[in-house]
Structure formats: C-alpha cells, structure tokens
C-alpha cells in the first residue's frame, strides 16, 4: 500500500475543511478506483465526486487511467473560471 496526498479545491475543500486528504492505495490502480476509495473514506465528498475529474501530476486522466507510481493527485470539481 502506498500513501497518496490528494489536493482539494473549491467545493471539495469546503466540504472537508482542509485543502488535502490522504488515502492508501495498492499499486497499480485505476483512477476510477481512486475516486471510489475517496468517496468511501470521505463521505462528505461522496455526492460531489461523480461530477469531479481526477488530475494526476496536474494532467486530467480518465477513469481507466492506471496509476503505477507515487504521484500528485488532485480532485477537480466542475470549473468556473472566466
């Protein structure tokens, strides 16, 4: 099991009250599984997670993306720049 820090922003950060959370994952693992683990371990994020994207090392990944090494993870809620 490898420990990951997951960055939180905007509504996700407000829901948890912190700008990051920690999760443990067996590797390799898919981005979709990461999202499922986060929703399970942090119920305050469960309703938000389905509308969020995951960024791995600051790049959006799809749910079948395989995470094989330590990486910077970030939960990206629906963006509203402009």
């Amino acid at each position, binding site marked *: 099991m490898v420990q990951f820090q997951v960055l939180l922003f*905007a509504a996700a950060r407000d829901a948890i009250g912190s700008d990051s959370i920690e999760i443990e994952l067996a590797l390799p693992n898919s981005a979709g599984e990461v999202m499922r683990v986060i929703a399970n371990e942090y119920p305050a994020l469960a309703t938000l997670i389905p509308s969020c994207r995951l960024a791995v090392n600051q790049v959006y990944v799809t749910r079948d993306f395989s995470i094989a090494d330590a990486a910077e993870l*970030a939960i990206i*809620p629906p963006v*509203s*720049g402009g």
Partner: protein
Amino acid sequence: MNTFLPPRIHVEISHEPIDRTRVEEFIDDPDVGAHLWFEGVTRRMTAGQETVRLCYEAFEPMAKQTLGEIAVQTLDEFQLTALVVVHRLGWVPVGEASLLVGCSSTHRAAAIESLAKFINRLKTDVPIWKKEYFADGSSSWVHPT
C-alpha cells in the same frame, strides 16, 4: 513542467487588478490587421440576485499549464499571430475584470472565432473556480451551466 510557449503567447495568472495597457504590446504588430480583446467583468445582477463580489481560486500551476496548452492549440488552429490571456484570482468586485483575452490575426473572422473557442476551452478545462458573494450575505460556488 511547463509546455514551451512560442514568443507570441503570453499567459498570466494575477492576484492584482488586470491592466490591459500593460499587455497591449503583445498584440500590437504592424503586420497584423485584426486585433480583438475580450474582458469578462463581475456583473452586479445574476438571476435576480445582487452580487457584491466574486472570489476566484485556482490550482495555480495546473491552471497556468492548461491555459498555455489551450493558447498554443488555439493559436495553431486559427493561425493567430498572437494570443494573450490574463486571469485574475482572489476578490474581484463588481465592475472589475476577472479575465482578459487578446488576440491578433491577419484574418478577422479567424480571430473572432478563435476567441469564442478559446474562452469555451478555458471555461471547460482550466482549474479555476469562482465563489459568488451576494448582497443578502449568502455565498455559493458557481457551477457551470
């Protein structure tokens, strides 16, 4: 980490009010006929509620990287000669700009179309969020429609 940016692209994330005169030089070019500027300004009334101010936050390194990528992509696709984007973060009072995009092209129609597409891409993919603070004391994260 950053994509290589050609010299005619300028991407900026700023915590200060946006000063267009400071970035106009990136667009001025005597060989280019069409110059276009877009400013997105905090507006007072939204769906009948009075906004007092907005607060923008970003995943800054990823936001800058993503802005650079869509700038390069838009410049190439529309054969622009220059593209400038400045996004402001933090508090933005009513009437002040949160976003400035400028572009230039020898072809007016391409410049206009590119601007629409660039802003759409920005609003879809750049990790920036705004929270709206209303006159009645309430606030909420803006969700794209």
